[in-house]
């Protein structure tokens, strides 16, 4: 917990500085390399008064062949960044929210084992958004599926509708343990946000992917799937990937390699 803190605190704080850094990088990159790269950089360094744009579609590539068995770093990083209690520390494990979890798969015939993290798939056609009676469940312009806790009434219809079991209800009062950047509360449904607070800050990465890279596994790659020059787009072009429950044709924001 405490050793994770310095990282989140050391991120650029003032908007001026952030904007300057973003613009400087963009200009430098634009001058130095190619116009495409400049577009990429601008998209990441969105000014704070600028709304999320549908020109961007955030997505994640999960390389299950690199995902280490028994490694839980992405899960811990998510819990630290977003302030949810790790299930092992919860008094009510069946009722504890889990934004991301490690899934162990096995083929009963061949005994082949696969490891992968399961999280909100940020569908382009999200069933949770379709069923939400109040419109609290929504998809942001840049493809991130979120819950607006101001209008969530806790009916759990989205949890019934999600094919990935990605959503959790907050079952008990949180007693002011929330992170200032990540509001979450009793009686509302929540799920992975692709670290939207980090994305809006211009980090261009999620806590889970950062942790995976830090651990040296490099199984998670986050980026803009709409930008053909982004690393994730390049990798997605090369690697064969699958969508989970592709039969539902939901056009997922999370793509898996090696499943």
């Amino acid at each position: 917990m405490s050793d994770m803190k310095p990282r989140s605190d050391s991120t650029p704080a003032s908007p001026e500085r952030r904007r300057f850094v973003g613009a400087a990088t963009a200009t430098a990159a634009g001058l130095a390399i190619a116009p495409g790269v400049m577009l990429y950089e601008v998209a990441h360094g969105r000014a704070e008064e600028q709304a999320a744009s549908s020109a961007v579609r955030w997505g994640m590539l999960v390389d299950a062949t690199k995902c280490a068995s028994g490694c839980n770093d992405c899960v811990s990083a998510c819990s630290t960044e977003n302030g949810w209690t790790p299930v092992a520390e919860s008094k009510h494990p069946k009722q504890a929210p889990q934004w991301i979890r490690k899934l162990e798969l096995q083929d009963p015939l061949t005994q082949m084992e696969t490891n992968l993290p399961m999280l909100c798939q940020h569908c382009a056609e999200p069933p949770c958004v379709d069923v939400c009676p109040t419109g609290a469940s929504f998809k942001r312009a840049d493809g991130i599926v979120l819950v607006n806790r101001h209008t969530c009434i806790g009916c759990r219809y989205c949890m019934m509708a999600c094919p990935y079991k990605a959503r959790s209800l907050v079952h008990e009062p949180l007693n002011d343990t929330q992170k200032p950047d990540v509001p979450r509360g009793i009686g509302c449904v929540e799920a992975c946000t692709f670290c939207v607070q980090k994305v809006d800050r211009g980090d261009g990465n999620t806590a889970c992917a950062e942790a995976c890279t830090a651990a040296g596994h490099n199984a998670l790659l986050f980026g803009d799937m709409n930008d053909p020059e982004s690393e994730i787009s390049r990798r997605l072009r090369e690697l064969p990937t699958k969508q989970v429950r592709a039969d539902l044709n939901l056009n997922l924001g999370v793509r898996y390699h090696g499943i």
Partner: protein
Amino acid sequence: MASITFREVEGSSPKYWILLGFLGLFVLFGALAWNYMHHHGHVVTGMDNQIVWGLPHVFAVFLIVAASGALNVASIASVFNKPMYKPLAPLSAILSLALLLGGLLVLVLDLGRSDRLIVAMTNFNFKSMFTWNVFLYSGFFVLVGIYLWTMLDRSVKSYSKAAGTAAFIWRLTLTTGTGSLFGFLVARELYGTAMLAPMFIIMSFAYGLAIYLMVLAAAYAWTGRALGDAVMMRLKTLLAVFVAAVLYFVVVQHMTSLYFTKFHAVEAFILRDGGSLTTLFWVGQIVIGCVVPLVILLSSLGKQRTWLMIACGLVILGGIIQMYVTIIGAQAYPLDMFPGLTEKSSFFDGEIHTYVPSMPEFFLGLGGVAVALLATTFAVKVLRLLPASLDDASVAKLEH
């Protein structure tokens, strides 16, 4: 028609007040249960992130389905022009309103943020079945309310048929909407089928009529009014047809699923390996809810009032169990995200999810039932809903 006189029940006997107090007590328990759940959050219930809809939903959906079914008798009278049913219509309308009220109360009080009901009333997403249901429920209150008015007020009596037809069409739509709450879910194997809408409609016929018959018989027995066999035997036959139809739909649904290999595992879970859920399905839903009532209703046993009441009671009990199996059963079976592979995780993927309802959930559900019965008990005292007599002689006159 002129021979039928409607009269309020006197409602001054100790028996009436004891009934009212008894029901009031359960309403109070329900309120306390809600307060407890609301204060501590859903952590005090048996529901979790696996079984997200629990016992309150079982009661709520049962009551809502039964509500539209309770309107049956009135519909037969005015939509299908059967004069014999006319005297029975007002009770049918009030009962359906009361049941819907009880069901909706349970539904909204089980929300994670039940204090935000106003949000649900002001923010709509028209792709959501839930939103459609909000309008279907409100419309039902309005239409059945108008329908009841045309029955009670002679000056607007000529609109009765129009109002009755509108209410009839609306209630069919309403139950289609209730069934589609589950039918429009892509994630779960046991849902996501158009079958659920017509199945819920036929279930509403059976459950609503069973409740109606019990309330009617109780009201007449406790007020000492005459209730002849002519009425009861007609309704008995009708109930038998509805229960048989429910059984038919359940059989067809499971037979269809059994034909598809991808549904084999989940069907095996419900029909064979599901432990208490399997028992509830076979013993509760099929035997208690359908087979035994059918035997009673179709044999000579059904001619006796006591046995008829037992059959109605079993249909109601079987109906609640059916809702339990439908709602909990589909959630207890894990989502199959990777067909053909076994799944394991800290989030209970790949495991059968267990559910043990808690006391507050149970009392919240019972509170809804109590609200429905309390409203009906109160309504028959203040409104002229019940004919003074339904003996065979006065009913026979209606036929001509």
